[in-house]
């Protein structure tokens, strides 16, 4: 197959979310991922994007760059780059899933889902940028 290599830069605003997720879904579709796996990728991508949209640029506007690099059938690297304040989304602790309804706080749920759904997630601060990398295989289990 011809591996995809594509980039998208959009304003880091919540209103951009549907279009960005649709673009990511299209990239995953082109790399041969099946529908349910594409939805899992979108759920994880939404977490990455919403964190950037809500927290990266407290002073005002900024943008987010998304890169899709195909590395084989049902094999993809997805990167989210922003030039906002330093934030390692992987440092957010997992929620306590076992506690009673009354006590449930939902902080960390999104990041937890991201880590469950994506084979390997890495964060790096590079100069003035945050780079979050998803390494994505055919199913959420196993090495890619």
């Amino acid at each position, binding site marked *: 197959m011809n591996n995809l290599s594509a980039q998208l830069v959009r304003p880091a605003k919540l209103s951009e979310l*549907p279009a960005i997720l649709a673009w990511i879904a299209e990239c995953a579709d082109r790399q041969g991922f099946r529908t349910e796996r594409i*939805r899992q990728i979108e759920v994880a991508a939404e977490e990455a994007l*919403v964190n950037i949209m809500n927290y990266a640029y407290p002073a005002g506007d900024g943008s987010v760059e998304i890169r899709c690099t195909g590395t084989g059938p049902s094999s993809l690297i997805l990167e989210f780059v922003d030039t906002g304040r330093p934030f390692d989304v992987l440092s957010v602790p997992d929620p306590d899933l076992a506690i009673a*309804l009354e006590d449930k706080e939902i902080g960390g*749920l999104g990041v937890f889902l991201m880590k469950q759904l994506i084979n390997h997630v890495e964060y790096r601060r590079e100069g003035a940028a945050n780079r979050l990398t998803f390494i994505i295989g055919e199913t959420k289990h196993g090495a890619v």
Partner: protein
Amino acid sequence: MQIAFSVMNDVASVTVSGRLDALTAAEFDRQIAGFLQDGTTKMVLSCSGLEYISSAGLRSMLALAKQLKARGGRLVCAGLKGTAREVFDMSGFAAAISLFETEEEALAAFS
């Protein structure tokens, strides 16, 4: 995201379909707040048409479950499937929100 509402006896039935993401969850919350003004305490959320739910959507569901419980009521969910079901299961919410295959079974939980 589409949402429809009906009441049978004293059980509210809310059918949600499409995508429940960070954007549409806010609209879901708004509409639910409107439905709840009549004092509803028992609710079935029918989710067979729900194709996608993210943590934002799950937060909305949990907030709704908490609200109803605080009123002495309960939220149950029917027909959740696919990735939406999988994400719900990962979140550990099944302890708080019972899942049923069909709306009939979900309604029966209240009788």
